[in-house]
């Protein structure tokens, strides 16, 4: 075993040997609490300043733009109008029974819905694929160096620019691509399958391949912290493997699952390039609408769409966090 030394346990975060609880005196607690307050301020100050400079200020300008207007000269004019938001929800002929758009939601909302649906699909697939990998790394691979090495292997494709990787899907899945060649060769199909590329299938596949690694990290950390002694105790009490998994491992790994979900959620909701390169532009994601508007300088409507997207993402994160408390102390 090449485990370093007993008090250097990188593989088992937080499950260090129990130390006897120190005697707590009233004075000690008060003193420490005050100390902690100052200490917290210092800990969050650099990030907060950075966030204000590079996030909050630009974000405020986006919020301001969303109330501005483009005049008929294509110039953005300061204003306070809700027209961009009205346009967001507006469908021509919504209340007109004779129109074919009668009671149809606005195209922006439909685009948001498409994006949402795709995100959910990708999220579920990513979780299903990533969980066993994280489990394998945390529970089956014992040495830290191998855990890290095998995790890094999953990250290697990420170090090739995604622009390159998405272009590489074409020679893989195209009509004359490797997969079709293989299928023709073994004789399963008689002519190349078209749906492999430029379809919802290829888009989902490419997105899963791009982002699945984001799920592995957090789930791995949650699993790695599960104390082996709990599992052994359960086993000694005669619990069956699936019971142990359902009653102990799964609940304890939920924070990691939730964080992985948040990663995938925000990544796919904001995605745009892959939809063009691998999806063949056949599905419009919210990101594409924003790009299309920005490509002609329509910043106010682009801003309002972006803010609605952000709001949706925020609600999603909020729901995920309500379902799983990632700060739970057990």
């Amino acid at each position: 075993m090449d485990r370093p030394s007993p008090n250097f346990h990188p593989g088992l975060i937080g499950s260090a040997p129990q130390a006897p609880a120190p005697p707590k005196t009233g004075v000690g607690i008060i003193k420490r609490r005050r100390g902690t307050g100052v200490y917290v301020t210092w800990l969050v100050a650099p990030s907060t300043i950075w966030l204000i400079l590079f996030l909050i200020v630009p974000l405020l300008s986006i919020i301001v733009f969303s109330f501005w207007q483009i005049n008929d000269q294509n110039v953005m004019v300061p204003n306070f109008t809700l027209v961009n938001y009205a346009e967001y929800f507006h469908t021509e002929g919504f209340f007109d029974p004779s129109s074919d758009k009668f009671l149809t939601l606005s195209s922006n909302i439909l685009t948001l819905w498409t994006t949402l649906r795709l995100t959910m699909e990708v999220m579920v697939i990513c979780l299903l694929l990533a969980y066993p990998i994280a489990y394998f790394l945390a529970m089956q691979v014992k040495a830290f160096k191998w855990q890290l090495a095998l995790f890094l292997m999953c990250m290697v494709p990420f170090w090739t620019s995604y622009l390159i990787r998405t272009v590489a899907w074409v020679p893989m899945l195209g009509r004359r691509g490797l997969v079709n060649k293989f299928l023709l060769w073994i004789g399963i199909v008689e002519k190349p399958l078209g749906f492999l590329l430029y379809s919802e299938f290829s888009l989902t596949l490419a997105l899963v391949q791009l982002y699945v690694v984001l799920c592995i990290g957090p789930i791995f950390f949650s699993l790695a912290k599960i104390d082996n002694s709990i599992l052994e105790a359960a086993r000694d009490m005669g619990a069956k493997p699936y019971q142990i998994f359902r009653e102990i491992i799964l609940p304890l790994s939920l924070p990691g699952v939730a964080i992985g979900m948040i990663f995938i959620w925000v990544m796919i909701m904001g995605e745009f390039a892959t939809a063009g390169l691998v999806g063949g532009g056949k599905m419009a994601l919210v990101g594409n609408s924003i790009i299309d508007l920005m490509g002609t300088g329509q910043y106010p409507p682009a801003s309002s769409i972006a803010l609605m997207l952000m709001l949706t993402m925020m609600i999603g994160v909020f729901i995920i966090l309500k379902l799983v408390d990632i700060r739970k102390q057990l």
Partner: protein
Amino acid sequence: MKQKSVKSTATTPKNGVSRRKILQTAAQAATVGAIASGFPYRFNIVHGAESFRTIGLGVSVINEIQSKASKDIGHRIRGQALGYGAMFGKMLTQNTQYEVAEGYYNDMDVMWPNKVWQPIDTRRIKHWDQISNLAKTGKLTPGSQYGQGDAPFRQLWLDSNAKVTLNGPTRYVTMVPGWHNADSIGYNPDETGRVIDSWGDLMSDEFKGRVALLNIPQIGMMDATMAVEALGLYKFKDKGNMTRKEIDFVIDYLIKKKKAGHFRALWETFGQSVQLMTSGEVALESMWSPAVTAIRAEGVKCIFASPKEGMRGWHGGLAISAKVSGRKLDAVYEYINWWLDGWAGAFVARQGYYMSTYKRSKNYMSAAEWDFWYEGKPAATDLPDPFGTIIIKKGKIRDGGSYEQRFKKIALWNSVMDENSYLVKRWGEFKNA
């Protein structure tokens, strides 16, 4: 000197970074690569009186062009090639970050009223009189027809209030006309089995599932509109500036076709359109003409169609940021004059683009090159691309005929319509159908 530059690159700047040092380090990165492989460093930056920056697409911002210009006129020119979206945004919102904008006339509706560029004095343009009438009047030859949309002559001239006017010629212009081309459909004759000679063929049921369309809403819409009109389904008043009703008609038609599985893909970048054809994914697609050359260079058959309705044109040029003045402005004018002088025109011609001062480009091209690229005659010898690779074999002929034939009949120029944001919204519906 070279030894020294390698050394300073090795130290990674971290704390107390000086802007210059990082820039140096970055610039030297290329040097290191070049030295490592034993190649001479190609960008011998001439220390001239002025240095300035130019931004644009990879069509005109090509290292060899800017470094040749630097050498010829003795200024330091830094070109930054960007993708279309990044270029557009930077041109519109950051005119302090460039001196020259290698822009496009279809963006003028947005750029000019926002006052990011300055009027250009035609009296300071040495070869102004040699710029062809295509950009100045809209008619390359007296017998040509006007194209609809944002033709350069509609976006070129400025009145005394620096407003764009249709009443040219005037002394001041928005942008100096440069490289341009006409787009139509590219197809693989083995796959289509016949000649494609109409925009309507894009929608033909014979090619169901083997068609790709351009996914830039403004331009993709124009190609689709050309097809709808060619099929006689609708008569448009002005395809360069459509009404909501007209947009609705085309989009609804596209949605119907899409639901029937007509389109294989929508493409966004030049490279993607090439890949679609070379990978055998599509039989025909709306295409930019140099893409055809690139496809053939990979050994795949491809023909550039000459639709009987006429092609869709686009025109680029050189604009100057409103923030430039003094000696830097003089230097920028020198650069623009250099562009019009002919060397650059010959360079872009070898990639299949045309130049506004094409008669000057002739001086920098061999007779065989001129005949092939501009006159539409068979290649008398093997012809290279700008980088020396032979891409045209002897005896080949350029599709679409001569320059004059091609630009005599431009049906439509790339445009941004008044109903642009409505168009974008409905285009999204098409994509999601």
